[in-house]
């Protein structure tokens, strides 16, 4: 980042959330880079930027789309780069219809299920004018149960998206064909004008021009611009598309794969990257292999082909190999070619099983036991009240943490005990609190946000009963296997056949190096038997090698823990390849082939990174090439061979099946191939761009305790929830507070929950500076100290004043931490992004009033009083389709938006029905 000439920070408060990472921004600034912060609030990041541009939360696609429109319509994009490395020239099927044609929807929408069939978004095949490139590419998805189930589709297909049959679709290098991606883009974003930005985001023309000028002037051969985002983009319905818009813009400007370029995702937990690479996520297996789906992936080959076919371009072609190695690592000698490497041992999904679906199942008494491994959902998850109520339905719960977090004490001192909704004596949940070892008390690796795996040495032994997860999980697995020993039940085979013999030291602690060695993989047979793999290219698909996570292959190359390398940074170049190990293959900049032009020459001397060395016939440069090292720039690629061999010399985006950066995503996203602006779910502002108000594929969990504000469907005369709040974190605390509210040195720095409001809003509702304010959403009411500050700016959106409220979410009610406060996430509804299953916590409608909230039962009564006034129904805000002239959805046109008609049947999600209310011991009383 220090190499960037312009850094646009949007959807992130980097200086506050990642102060040490921000040093690189400050360094770039001191080297002359322009820093721009686009955010609803003026934060510590804004304070150090050249310019802060206040915007409306949730309107990011309008702004970024307008920038795309600006660079396209004024020919300001990096044409050589775009032609060489993106799919701009690719021709799309003539069956494709854009939002321009369909009032804000794309072709393929099924109003019954609220989902898209992406078949019409496909590439055109060469010669076959206007026909879908290869219909069979979508076999196994089209119309399948799985597609309808819409589970975490974005990540279900790994990082390359689902496969395309061939890497060479029809193209028009002149970019003139109206069906080329570039022309589609031009049309799609033609409505995204600077005027529209003013209208929808509240950003003035002057500010937009400043931003556009900074971006354009700092892109191209000589200069690069970098984007940084964080949960300010992901935690939206449609959040994945926010990021894609920025990615597309960066591709158009040639800012991917080059020094000081790219989109920097700033993540909030020590190894949140690692925990997706080696996922504790329902829909993924290690290395972004999807969990198999019932019906769709009943045999191994179908499963492997659905990820990447042998014949396709790029590294996903070897997906079967990666899966074989994983299965070998897990089931060792029991995984053989004959039994498809024990593929059948894997459980199958039939729909999303994320934390919010699990919660609804808990409330239905469908879950017995719950493990919390260093997470505090009673505070950190949306709709905290439902989270705690869900816990009261469990038979048992295991909390592993350092201190008595609120998810461990909810049965004794949670807000529901206060309000009388729950009584400790009536709660049957058996609680185990197991003290955890912390980061100094165990060795192991974290993967940080730039994919760098870093090993930690152990400093001391854990105190008392505290132990590492490694030791606990190993011990648990060991005992479970002991208890099942001799079982003949086939369902117990996967447990009994599991490789679970890790070396243990005299204190019962598992050697973590043995685990990372298994993740790295080794030769199982052959002359190198027992030797660690040096990289994933060494993996075989015949069972002669094993490896727990293919992208991590090489981390234990030569039997050396590469992640533990600690050669000081000041003794190395800026890539510091000998500090830790980055996946894949210790590469520090992904897609770095794009740092050179089509001929393999650097775009400029200033931004040199990788180049083709004619004499050595190799790619040279300070970073490890993210490309076959000896493939010449003009190599056409062996299309028939597929895989890495299939890549052409300029297919810089080696994970994509056409080798190109995707401006248009023919597959992989469930809510459209091009990012489109939709209003937040409970926004009462009409979508200024399309009749379609909100994202038509969003997921909503319908429950009496998860009501939505009416948004556009409400009574315009009395807006009960007229303001919008965003949640966020501050430097002084960490997430739900489990690692910060207990520490006096951090607690004293931000001792109380506060809300940030503009002086205008304070005057409007009568809140005193540093006095108390009560914030009420359709789910909960909380109190906070009001920081009345000019840092919050009221915006004029579509002719009306929009007030935004800032709420950090680190506090919770309890008596064990040093400081306490109400839990902000109690306010938030579970509305999920269909691509990622991440909830929206950045825009929520609310009311605010001066003074403290009521105590005891009166607290919930206040919430319900506002619900009544707003006339909330179970399905309020649940209306997916609002485009009146959507041709395929005519049968839904005449739905009365106020009627509250349930469209529950359009979902096949496991959901908590309203009728289940009275079965719960703890349900909210209906009046």
């Amino acid at each position: 980042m220090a190499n960037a000439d312009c850094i646009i920070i949007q959807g992130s408060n980097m200086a506050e959330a990642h102060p040490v990472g921000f040093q690189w921004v400050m360094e770039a600034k001191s080297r002359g880079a322009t820093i721009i912060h686009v955010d609803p609030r003026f934060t510590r990041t804004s304070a150090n930027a050249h310019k802060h541009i206040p915007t409306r939360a949730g309107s990011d696609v309008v702004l970024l789309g307008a920038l795309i429109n600006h660079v396209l319509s004024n020919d300001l994009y990096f044409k050589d780069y775009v032609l060489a490395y993106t799919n701009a020239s690719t021709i799309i099927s003539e069956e494709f219809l854009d939002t321009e044609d369909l009032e804000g929807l794309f072709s393929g929408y099924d109003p019954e299920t609220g989902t898209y069939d992406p078949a019409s978004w496909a590439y055109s095949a060469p010669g076959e004018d206007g026909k879908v490139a290869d219909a069979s590419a979508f076999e196994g998805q089209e119309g399948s149960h799985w597609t309808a189930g819409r589970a975490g589709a974005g990540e279900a297909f790994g990082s390359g998206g689902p496969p395309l049959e061939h890497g060479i679709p029809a193209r028009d290098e002149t970019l003139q064909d109206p069906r080329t991606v570039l022309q589609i883009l031009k049309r799609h974003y033609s409505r995204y004008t600077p005027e529209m930005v003013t209208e929808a985001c509240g950003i003035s023309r002057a500010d937009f021009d400043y931003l556009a000028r900074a971006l354009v002037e700092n892109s191209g051969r000589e200069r690069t611009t970098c984007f940084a985002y964080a949960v300010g983009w992901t935690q939206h319905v449609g959040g994945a598309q926010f990021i894609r818009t920025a990615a597309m813009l960066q591709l158009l400007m040639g800012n991917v794969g080059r020094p000081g370029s790219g989109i920097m995702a700033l993540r909030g937990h020590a190894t949140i990257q690692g925990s997706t690479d080696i996922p504790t996520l329902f829909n993924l297996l290690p290395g972004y292999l999807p969990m198999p789906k019932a019906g769709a992936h009943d045999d191994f080959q179908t499963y492997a082909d659905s990820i990447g076919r042998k014949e396709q371009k790029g590294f996903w072609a070897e997906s079967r190999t990666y899966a074989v190695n994983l299965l070998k690592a897990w089931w060792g000698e029991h995984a053989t070619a004959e039994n498809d490497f024990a593929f059948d041992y894997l459980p199958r999904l039939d729909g999303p099983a994320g934390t919010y679906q699990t919660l609804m199942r808990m409330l239905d008494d469908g879950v017995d036991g719950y493990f919390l491994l260093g997470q505090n959902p009673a505070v950190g998850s949306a709709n905290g009240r439902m989270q705690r109520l869900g816990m009261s339905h469990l038979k048992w719960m295991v909390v592993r943490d350092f201190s008595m977090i609120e998810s461990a004490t909810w049965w004794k001192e949670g807000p529901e005990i206060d309000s009388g909704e729950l009584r400790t004596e009536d709660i049957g949940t058996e609680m185990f609190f197991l003290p955890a070892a912390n980061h100094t008390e165990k060795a192991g690796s974290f993967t940080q946000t730039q994919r760098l795996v870093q090993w930690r040495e152990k400093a001391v032994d854990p105190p008392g009963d505290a132990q590492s997860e490694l030791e606990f999980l190993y011990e648990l697995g060991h005992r479970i296997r002991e208890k099942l020993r001799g079982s003949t039940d086939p369902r117990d085979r996967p447990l009994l056949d599991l490789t679970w013999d890790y070396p243990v030291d005299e204190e019962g602690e598992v050697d973590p190096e043995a685990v990372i060695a298994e993740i790295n993989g080794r030769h199982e047979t052959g002359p190198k038997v027992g030797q660690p793999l040096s990289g994933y290219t060494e993996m075989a698909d015949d069972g002669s090698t094993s490896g727990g996570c293919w992208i991590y292959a090489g981390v234990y190359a030569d039997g050396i823990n590469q992640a533990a390398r600690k050669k000081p940074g000041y003794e190395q170049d800026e890539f510091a390849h000998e500090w830790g190990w980055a996946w894949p293959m210790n590469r520090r900049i992904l897609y770095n082939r794009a740092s050179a032009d089509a001929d393999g020459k650097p775009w400029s001397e200033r931004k040199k990174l990788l180049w083709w060395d004619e004499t050595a016939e190799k790619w040279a440069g300070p970073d490890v090439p993210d490309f076959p090292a000896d493939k010449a720039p003009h190599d056409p690629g062996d299309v028939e061979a597929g895989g890495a061999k299939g890549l052409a010399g300029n297919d810089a985006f080696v994970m994509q099946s056409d080798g190109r950066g995707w401006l248009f995503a023919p597959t992989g996203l469930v809510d459209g191939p091009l990012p489109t602006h939709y209003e937040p779910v409970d926004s009462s502002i009409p979508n200024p761009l399309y009749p379609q108000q909100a994202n038509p594929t969003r997921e909503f969990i319908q429950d009496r305790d998860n009501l939505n504000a009416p948004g556009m469907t409400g009574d315009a005369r009395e807006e009960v929830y007229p303001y919008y709040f965003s949640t966020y974190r501050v430097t002084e605390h960490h997430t739900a507070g489990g690692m910060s509210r207990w520490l006096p040195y951090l607690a004293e720095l931000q001792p109380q929950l506060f809300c940030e409001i503009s002086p205008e809003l304070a005057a409007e509702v009568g809140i005193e500076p540093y006095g108390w304010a009560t914030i009420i959403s359709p789910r909960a009411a909380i109190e906070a100290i009001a920081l009345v500050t000019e840092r919050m700016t009221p915006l004029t959106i579509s002719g009306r004043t929009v007030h935004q409220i800032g709420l950090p979410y680190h506090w919770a009610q309890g008596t064990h931490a040093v400081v306490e406060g109400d839990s902000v996430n109690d306010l938030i509804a579970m509305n999920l992004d269909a691509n990622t299953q991440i909830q929206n916590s950045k825009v929520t409608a609310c009311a605010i009033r001066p003074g403290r909230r009521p105590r005891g039962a009166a607290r919930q009564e206040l919430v319900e009083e506002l619900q009544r006034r707003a006339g909330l129904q179970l399905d309020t805000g649940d209306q997916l389709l609002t485009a009146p002239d959507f041709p395929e959805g005519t049968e839904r046109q005449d739905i009365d938006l106020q009627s509250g008609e349930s469209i529950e049947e359009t979902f096949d999600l496991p959901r908590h029905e309203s009728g289940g209310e009275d079965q719960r011991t703890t349900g909210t009383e209906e009046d």
Partner: protein
Amino acid sequence: MTHSEYDEYRPPEPPRRRRGGRGAGPGGKGKRRRDLTESGGDGSREMAMVEDVEFESYYGRPVVKAPPWETPIGIYLFVGGLAGASGLLQAGAALTGNTELRRSARLVAIAAVGVGTPALVIDLGRPERFLHMMRVFKVSSPMSLGTWILSSYASGAAMTAANEVDRLTGERLPFGPLRPLLRLAEGPSAVLQGVMGAPLAAYTAVLLGDTAVPTWNAARHGLPFVFVSSASLAAGGMAMALTSQKNAGPARLLAAAGVIGDIVGMHFTKSRMHPLESEPLEEGTPGKLLTWAERLAVAGGIGTLLARRSRTVAVASGLALAGASALTRFGVLHAGHESVKDPRRVMIPQKDRLEKRRAAGITDDSITTGW
């Protein structure tokens, strides 16, 4: 909370002398009054209740801190002065052969030292370390000098008082063979006590003046006069009260001189101060204390003129004078504490003097520089 109790006594804020043109601080600074009595731990970090300020400060918070000197130090300031002037009185009496006055002065002195020294120790954060005061002899530290002054004075006072008490009790104290030595030391001890008397009375003024506490620091030009006068009137008053009219003449005169010096000195002191610095001496609790100190001093002073005739009047005016001295000390002490609470009292006089120097062409001595 300490500061709300001060607040109760605080009179409505008078109109401020404002620096024109200074815009009010934006976003929660300066002008706004905040009721944050809950916050703040110890006295010095509390939120000052600064109303209607039109100058820049950091949320109206104090800029300098006052030493944590509470009631025991107030007592010490009083009895230290009393002892100091009594030291001179006993020396004079000894020289002039005024045995009764000598005895009264010595007994007052030893009583004062007996009260003052423990008061000093009690006020330490770590009283068990009071001997650390004797580790060094620092001329730059009035407290260090004062320690040495007090200890020399106290040793002299102890010897002279021991002799007096011994004589008073008819040599019944168990001194045994040491008695001749005691008598032998009486003369030099009286001289020591006399020599240390004036420094003991005066050093506390330097001690207060040598701080960054605005009111004390600004009072440094006159405070020594106030303190020696206050000491004189107190010692004179006490001696006058304890001595028969015929022998109390010098005490009465000293007291009367003290009263004049005290009143003149205080007015002189204030005249050299910035109005914002002298305000605490006139307003609020310290202002009240000082007003009453002056009234008592005047009453006591008039009393001394009549005290030759009546022992009752002598005793009453003696007590009034002692009371005046005590009130003066507490008044000055608290005025200092009061003056640090409001950052204006630090900032504005400093800005004024900086401006004045700049206007006079001295531009090279500012802590803030543009280069």
